[in-house]
């Protein structure tokens, strides 16, 4: 029983229904109830590459997905003005792993290069692909397959509708449009059924709360509190504004652009038909009016019409629930927690949550307590890692132009584990052993891209066998070769999207 029909509700429905054969008579029954009046928040517009696998397993056609969700290809995040705030301050965090990652210490050999070059460029061809606004594949590449690892930018509203249609028409998910007016508890404290306006009581074995900020079941019914993490991540307000392209042939960036501001940062996401921008900031460090002015001025300088449209304000209470799975109720999406979208973690967390619920779907009520305990442990760990990773972007900044940046580097605002790791990384680069869970939300390579992209300078260490200069050089050369080859062979992001619109991609 899923309550709420935004991206969280429908992704969860799709993941569960596809795995548990909901469209066959003996399969799991999945029902989604949503209020006809509640509009989805629709802010999650960037995904991680995991979304390809998630949608493929649901049986979606990538061509349909791109056409109907106004989706485009995303290969990286680009961070502007995060280090010094200067015009030329820019680095990439690409999705492709560094070439030769794990085989040799790339970092020490990159540092030893005679002329300094950006880390991302030396170890990955993807930064150059992004710089030249290239697509991550060709029109002949089959659906879901990549030449360069990629994720998506999408229209969250359309994505929800697309998934709804797919889930109800293909996967056997039952859709109930109704108001949930109350919760009927069972004797053991579980939820027995939901009270609805027109459909009476709806019973279920497991209730998944996808009701966004309202958190109807976990928050309101069970009173599970929100653990604020504002002391670490200060941004608590967002202003969103959609921007049309200058012309219909304007290039579509194949990376998210995140531009640091005095009291936050601005996201800029290129969809085929428009850009989505927004300013996320700390209300303790600036005012709404100043934040809106900063957003409009950014739009002006990036080639948009700064006078058009009115901004939509979203208040964020940065943090997550104390626990996510309580009795027979589990929260997925914003109802479980929300944090500034600096590394597009929102949709990725939904995928991970729904996948774990699906994989470990309790066969009996007794085993549910074991599963929920495991779920809570794992997701508390994941929230902590996301918060560490986002905080890293702020801690490494050298900006001194506002209290926002200075406050961000105060030791008492930095999680202890992150402080420890940063100390360790002075002597050894981030590696897989720093992040030991199997499905780490951000792999150690991501930490490397951010650390060295932001000019983190490790100490000289004693030489090791893995400091193999010749081997590292071979990987660097190989990467340079791939960069040339892919730049020559890959179309522009816009050209590929046009071809997908016109001809579609093949399944094989």
């Amino acid at each position, binding site marked *: 029983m899923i309550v709420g029909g935004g991206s969280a509700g429908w992704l969860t429905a799709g993941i569960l229904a596809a795995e548990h054969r909901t469209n066959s008579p003996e399969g799991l029954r999945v029902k989604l109830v949503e209020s006809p009046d509640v509009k989805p928040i629709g802010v999650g517009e960037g995904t991680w590459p995991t979304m390809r696998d998630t949608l493929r397993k649901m049986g979606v056609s990538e061509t349909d997905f791109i056409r109907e969700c106004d989706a485009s290809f995303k290969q990286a995040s680009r961070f502007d003005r995060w280090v010094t705030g200067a015009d030329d301050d820019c680095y990439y965090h690409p999705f492709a792993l560094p070439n030769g990652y794990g085989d040799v210490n790339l970092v020490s050999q990159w540092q030893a290069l005679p002329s300094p070059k950006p880390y991302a460029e030396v170890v990955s061809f993807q930064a150059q692909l992004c710089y030249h606004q290239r697509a991550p594949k*060709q*029109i*002949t590449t089959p659906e879901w397959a990549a030449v360069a690892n990629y994720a998506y930018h999408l229209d969250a509203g359309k994505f929800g509708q697309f998934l709804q249609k797919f889930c109800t028409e293909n996967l056997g998910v039952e859709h109930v449009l109704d108001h949930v007016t109350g919760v009927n508890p069972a004797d053991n404290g579980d939820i027995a059924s939901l009270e609805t306006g027109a459909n009476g009581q709806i019973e279920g074995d497991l209730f998944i709360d996808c009701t966004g900020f309202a958190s109807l079941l976990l928050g309101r019914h069970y009173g599970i509190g929100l653990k604020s993490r504002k002391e670490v991540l200060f941004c608590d307000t967002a202003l969103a504004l959609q921007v049309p392209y200058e012309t219909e042939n304007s290039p579509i960036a194949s990376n998210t652009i995140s531009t640091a501001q005095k009291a936050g940062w601005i996201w800029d996401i290129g969809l085929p038909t428009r850009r989505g921008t927004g300013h996320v900031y700390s209300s303790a460090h600036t005012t709404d009016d100043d934040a809106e002015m900063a957003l409009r001025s950014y739009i002006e300088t990036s080639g948009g019409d700064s006078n058009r449209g009115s901004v939509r304000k979203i208040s964020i209470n940065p943090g997550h629930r104390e626990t996510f799975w309580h009795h027979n109720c589990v929260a997925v999406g914003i109802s479980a927690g929300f944090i500034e979208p600096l590394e597009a973690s929102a949709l990725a967390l939904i995928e991970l949550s729904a996948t774990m619920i699906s994989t470990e779907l309790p066969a009996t009520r007794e085993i549910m307590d074991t599963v929920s305990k495991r779920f809570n442990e794992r997701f508390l760990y994941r929230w902590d890692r996301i918060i560490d990773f986002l905080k890293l972007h702020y801690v490494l900044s050298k900006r001194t132009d506002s209290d926002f940046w200075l406050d961000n580097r105060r030791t008492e605002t930095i999680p202890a584990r992150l402080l420890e790791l940063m100390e360790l990384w002075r002597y050894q680069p981030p590696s897989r052993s720093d992040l030991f869970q199997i499905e780490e939300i951000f792999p150690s390579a991501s930490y490397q891209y951010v650390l060295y992209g932001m000019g983190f300078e490790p100490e000289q260490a004693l030489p090791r066998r893995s400091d193999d200069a010749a081997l590292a050089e071979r990987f660097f050369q190989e990467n340079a070769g791939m960069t040339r080859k892919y730049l020559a062979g890959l179309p522009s992001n816009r050209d590929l999207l046009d*071809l997908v619109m*016109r*001809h*579609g991609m*093949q*399944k*094989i």
Partner: protein
Amino acid sequence: MANIELLNNIDHKNLKVKIERSAELGDNVWFTPTFPQEFKVLQNHYPIVFTKNTETGQFQAVALLGFEAGENLFLDENGWNANYIPLSIMRQPFLIGFQHAEKDGVPIKQMVVSVDMDNPRVNETEGEAVFLEHGGNTGYLEQVNSILKLISDGFERNSAFIDMLMGMDLLESFVLDVELDDGSQHLMSGFYTINEESLSGLTGDDLVILNNNGHLEPIYMAIASMSNIPKLIEMKNSLLETKTPHADD
């Protein structure tokens, strides 16, 4: 680049076309497009496989003529060594196009014949004349017209054929790993063939649909055509033999 002109008996009054087969005239291609109605005659000579059009990503059927770009194993100094030449080769240097016209007030698509003036076959001195002295069509042009008509009809039905293959999961990619007598290896990828396992697993309904649409025969023709691959390898090997003298010679 092609220089396409609409064929007419004024501008192209003296046009002649060289019809012999040679690399110089552009026959050195390693595959050439085909369509289901041609499979039956092709499968005697050439492997019929599928590949994606690099501009659109759409599947097209092709007759395989060699193992690498520029290699047509059926071609030598005497011409084309097979008694059937694919129609997409035979049509050169002519193309088919459509013009929007009107008939009794109703818009219609009208087939028109164009010629690529940059094609090396085109000249004014050698080969087959296209128009008669007073502007009528020569027998050669009539023959070209009928080839173009066949191609046009064929490609029109092609997408329905491909859609059905895709819909029933009847295509699979294959990698041809050819080892030649001289020890050299050729890895060919980007080609697709009929998935025989899927085909044999089809239920009655799907088979009836395929058959009623005339798709079943070309599917089996494409499967049968794969027996030409060893023949193609053989041709490549004997070519290598004539090129590389033996050490004890």
